[in-house]
């Protein structure tokens, strides 16, 4: 997969930073320095599909806020306590269900080049001496930047040199070509978002196939990287049971359960605004037409008995193949946990603690 950008805009404030110069040197697409981002937003908003247009324009700028943030969980549902390393926003792949389509107004590929500030903040985080799970895949795909920026070159060795935090690189790509160069010390987890071939084909434009993702996972496993998988979003449709079961079987025929730090499950949920975007941009998509209710976080969610019925099956199938692998739900309540897993996170010290323990076991983390 290449980096399909048609134009690069550079924020005047970062035009002379070393990372900017490195990224724009020899660029094969036009590069324009702007002093007001509104000019860029104006260009995007005047296109017929600003979301699509935003995937083809790269904006090199400064992260003016914190680089490390808590994942925005909500009170009622159990949150995993993941920390986000905010390296950039948006993605050149095009998934119908992607929340980023409605999260930024307008969305645009942004890459933060004040790299030294990010690394300093990361160093401070390491010095806290507590177990942390940090990922770059919340506001963007962790590996789309690889062909262009080699951000892993900065991050993987830094995580390898400490023992309290683990980096999770979450992706739908197979951009793993740089990963063999690093002494990762098992402090970087390579994670893939998985779905059925039907959903990948119909809802995840410009992404890699299930087979390609699992082949990449197998390669990373051979390099000694710990792995993780995210069945998120699980989409309920006619025939989905057999197809998700097959994905699970294919997964465990590709990699060993012992290499897997965790597997998350999360059924499709979305802010109400996303529905009209999906209807407009993915007119053939059926995903907005499930039995959704408004959840306690104001997101649309599948009716709870449907979620629970499907989770029970997914958990059963995964446990049949990998009884010891940690399975967790992304943003579900105690009732879902207890009725489908047989326990609540609180009974095991809380979801963050469950994940921390698994990270400690698989990645050799230790509290200072």
């Amino acid at each position: 997969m290449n980096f399909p950008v048609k134009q690069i805009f550079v924020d005047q404030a970062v035009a002379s930073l070393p990372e900017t110069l490195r990224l724009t040197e020899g660029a094969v697409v036009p590069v324009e320095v702007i002093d007001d981002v509104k000019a860029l937003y104006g260009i995007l908003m005047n296109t017929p599909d600003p979301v699509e247009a935003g995937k083809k324009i790269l904006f090199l700028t400064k992260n003016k806020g914190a680089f490390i943030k808590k994942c925005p969980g909500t009170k009622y549902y159990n949150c995993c306590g993941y920390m986000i390393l905010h390296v950039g926003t948006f993605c050149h792949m095009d998934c119908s269900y992607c929340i980023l389509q409605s999260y930024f107004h307008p969305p645009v590929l942004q890459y933060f080049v004040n790299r030294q500030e990010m690394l300093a903040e990361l160093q401070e985080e390491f010095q806290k001496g507590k177990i942390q799970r940090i990922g770059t895949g919340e506001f963007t795909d962790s590996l789309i930047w690889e062909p262009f920026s080699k951000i892993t070159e900065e991050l993987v060795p830094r995580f390898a040199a400490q023992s309290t935090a683990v980096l999770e690189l979450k992706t739908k790509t197979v951009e793993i070509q740089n990963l063999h160069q690093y002494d990762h010390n098992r402090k970087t987890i390579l994670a893939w978002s998985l779905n059925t071939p039907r959903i990948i084909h119909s809802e995840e434009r410009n992404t890699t196939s299930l087979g390609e993702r699992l082949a990449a996972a197998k390669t990373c496993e051979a390099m000694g990287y710990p792995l993780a998988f995210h069945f998120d979003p699980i989409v309920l449709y006619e025939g989905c049971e057999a197809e998700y079961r097959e994905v699970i079987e294919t997964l465990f025929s590709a990699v060993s359960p012992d290499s897997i730090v965790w597997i998350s499950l999360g059924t499709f949920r979305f802010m109400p605004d996303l529905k009209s975007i999906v209807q407009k941009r993915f007119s053939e998509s059926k995903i907005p037409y499930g039995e959704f209710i408004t959840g306690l976080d104001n997101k649309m969610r599948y009716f709870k008995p449907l979620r629970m019925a499907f989770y029970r099956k997914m958990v059963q199938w995964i446990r049949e193949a990998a009884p010891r692998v940690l399975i967790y739900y992304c943003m579900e309540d105690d009732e879902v946990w207890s009725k489908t897993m047989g326990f609540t996170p609180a009974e095991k010290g809380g979801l963050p603690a469950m994940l921390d323990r698994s990270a400690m076991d698989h990645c050799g983390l230790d509290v200072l």
Partner: protein
Amino acid sequence: MKFKMEMINPEDIDSTDLSFQITTREDPDDLMASIRAIGVINPPLLWQEDHGRRIIVCGRRRIAACFKAGMASVECRIAEEANRLKCVKTAISDNAFQRQLNWVEISRALNRLMQEIRDKDQVLSMLPDLGLPEGKDILDKAIRIAHFTQPIQDGLISGQIPFAMALELGGLEPETGSFLANLFQQLTLSLNKQREILEWAVEIAARESKTPMDILLENGIQGVIKNPDWDRNQKGTALRKHLRTRRYPWIQKAETLFQEGMKSLKIPPGIRLSPPKDFESDRYAFQIEFKKQSQLASRLKTLERLSEAQALKDLLDGLDLDSPPAHAPSSFRSKAVK
């Protein structure tokens, strides 16, 4: 505009040319009495293009009323040194400054202007002077209305189909839009109810790879619409219930099961059990009403009985997914894993 006065006979007018017609009112009967009594106060305006027959710019109903009242000819103003655009603007102003135009009339006016000018910005700049609603958004939406099917336009004119709904119906296949427009007018439904019916029919169709018309022609819906024993309120309620059950079979089933469970609990008046909204949280609520302390004590005893009832335990344990509703996708009809 310069004009001359002339007596015009029916054969002098090209009544098939509706180039300048703005009004949606056709029936001239209400004008006839006035014309008989005091004549035509404001003479109609005609325009003659390239020595052809005269086209009515303003006063189509007045002319029709005169001839229907038996007059052999009508005194009209004949525009001189005019062109089509000038006539269009005159026709619009003649209507818009006399009364509130309905959306179909506004749409006709906008279409006539666009036809002559072909430049949206120029049309937009003229709207205030012509008494038409302003704004690009309104222009883009309203201009579509004149191309909608007759039932949708009729619903708009009668006020039974709001502007927002007309735009949605106009975006459907013409047959579907007309069907729903007729249905909404027949059942006199509020905008919210119209929206529910439209949304559910469209979404069921999308989910099942059918057309909305396929859904609307199903026996369940046709049976409701054609039921001779029901009035329009009953039909509206039954139609919405049927479509909601089709769209949300599991949620509907959960609500039914909950109601059945409530019956088996035999909860006396004064105590109410409420489920969590959409069954999403795990918090149920009892509400007790009482007038006297003794009544509160009695109802608390009832609550104590209920707290130990197996029927309440069953209700709180959740819904039975082993027997899915008829319209659930078949993937959920297999037995749920326990």
